[in-house]
């Protein structure tokens, strides 16, 4: 960490536009955003190696499409936290509501508290680690990446999932369509150990279960009774 002081950006004296423009213009340094009071799209679209800390609760799409550097939210976040993040890290000390990490393609999202419904929906390669529980339909249509949940999950986990991996320590209320429990092999334990350590979460990998795709929905089932009848007639 550099010893230089963090630049303070205050929602009481600056607009969302001014604050985000500053974050987009600067390429180095650290910034502390104060008085966010649930503002939307705070620190969205960051694409340089800056460190941002947000002191207080944020609204929708905080750190949306995050590409580089780090964002830490000291508080709670509403819908779409770190949606479609590409890389870098986003960490929140509180809870996140719906669709946290939606379609996230890369990087690490850490939710120290709970996440609401559809956490990791359509995720496309990111790592998401949740300290608490996740709501229903989490990892819906999740394409790739890893979702780690230390607590329980609500219903329909991983509905219509593709190749994402889900590691759950608590109880799973129910699995969604084509989501199945899978064997936890050595390689998965290694991966999980790494993810937990990156996220700074103390947990024993062997306490988790792994879930993923049954791959039954990947292709349409097309029957051809006419062809079968023709074959039988020939035989």
């Amino acid at each position, binding site marked *: 960490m550099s010893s230089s002081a963090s630049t303070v950006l205050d929602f009481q004296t600056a607009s969302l536009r001014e604050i*985000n423009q500053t974050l987009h213009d600067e390429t180095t340094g650290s910034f502390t955003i104060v008085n966010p009071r649930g503002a939307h799209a705070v620190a969205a*679209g960051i694409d340089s190696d800056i460190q941002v800390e947000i002191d207080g609760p944020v609204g929708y799409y905080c750190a949306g499409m995050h590409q580089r550097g780090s964002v830490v939210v000291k508080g709670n976040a509403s819908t779409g936290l770190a949606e479609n993040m590409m890389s870098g890290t986003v960490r929140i000390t509180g809870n996140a509501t719906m669709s946290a990490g939606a379609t996230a393609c890369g990087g690490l999202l850490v939710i120290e508290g709970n996440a609401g419904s559809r956490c990791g929906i359509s995720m496309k390669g990111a790592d998401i680690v949740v300290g608490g529980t996740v709501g229903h339909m989490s990892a819906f249509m999740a394409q790739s990446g890893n979702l780690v949940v230390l607590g329980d999950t609500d219903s329909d986990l991983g509905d219509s999932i593709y190749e994402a991996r889900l590691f759950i320590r608590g109880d799973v209320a129910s699995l969604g369509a084509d989501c199945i429990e899978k064997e936890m092999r050595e390689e998965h334990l290694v991966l999980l150990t790494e993810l937990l350590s990156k996220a700074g979460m103390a947990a024993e990998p062997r306490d988790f279960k792994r879930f993923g795709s049954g791959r039954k929905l990947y*292709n349409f089932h097309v029957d051809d009774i006419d062809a079968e009848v023709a074959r039988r007639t020939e035989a």
Partner: protein
Amino acid sequence: MTTPAEWAQRESHTFDRNVIAEIRRAANTGIYRIRGWGAKRDLPTLDDLVVLGASMSRYPLEGYRESCGTDVVIGEATSAKPVRLDIPITIAGMSFGSLSGPAKEALGRGANAAGTSTTTGDGGMTQEERVHSKTLVYQYLPSRYGMNPDDIRNADAIEVVVGQGAKPGGGGMLLGQKITERVAEMRSLPEGIDQRSACRHPDWTGPDDLEIKIIELREIVDWQVPIYVKVGAARPFYDTALAVKAGADAVVVDGMQGGTAATQDIFIEHVGIPTIAAVPEAVRALRDLGVHREVKLIAAGGIRSGADVAKAIALGADAVSIGTAALIAIGDNDPVYEDEYRQLGSTAGLWDDFQAGTDPAGITTQDPGRMARLDPMIAGRRLANYLQVLTLETQTIARACGKSHVHNLEPEDLAALTVEAAAMAKVPLAGTGWIPGQ
């Protein structure tokens, strides 16, 4: 005279031969019919309207001598870099994946030459299309396949797709034959799967959320480029009003005739309302809100000729968007490949299996051999010529109505040929002053 024997053999109207064939196909395969193209059944269209032209009470402009403007500007009020088009005809969103690389390049080349925009689709932005399209609209879709902020910043406008005319309420589809390695990688999907995309956005539902989503998008691009919202024509009055409320710079309303790369036939033929019915409702919403011709309306779905363009604009649209016609212009269903269309059980002009990846013309395919048949330079020139004809035809009609800009066309310049068209378009039945319901 019908003989009694012939009468006994008459075809059922309810269960005609097409219905019977479809029931048999369904019983054999256990899967709905998926195809490309748009609605094929007889629907009310802009052909049901006529343009009145000048007469004693208004005088026409001279063709070629008196100017008739065709330009469109989108997003001036919000964006540092508004979209400026020379002509009121844009190329609709069609994904790389559904279309080949050379087809996307051809669309870009043709659109550039004509001074208009092209649009990405469900699958992200390719280098081919960015390099070859001077003005490129980036679609932001429920699936978010290939969505990344670098491409968003690299676009000239962003189009948030809520729906499509061919399937309002439905998501994208791309069948396994077209999910090649490159397409799979762009979409982060396993190769060869039958991909069924999400139909709802993963991180917003409803107009209040959309308003916040649009703020986020504007923040990410530092308020540089305009934002469109595209809806399939279902409830265009409310959808347009809500899109305006959410902050759109332009609303794209796509009628039920609109083309598609792959959708259930039942969806294509039965969901949504026709373009002729949708445009006046969208315009009514814009007028109600006092933003007509400020927030731009782009009409799509079955636009074929300058007459369609002129009529859509007279009804109140600012521009139109074309998909199927653009594909035909670059060579889709070209009779030179007749033998191959026959091998596919079809004939040039009727082939609609865009989902199959077997396109003899190299347009709706990812097969390298077929793709190589499409010369993007030649195909681009064909599209440029076609766009020029559409523009000249639109101007011909506008001048005949005495308009120095195509946007001066108005509903008063139109009459309807059928009672239905009069009711839907809200213009009088020809030869009367009667608008049903008014």
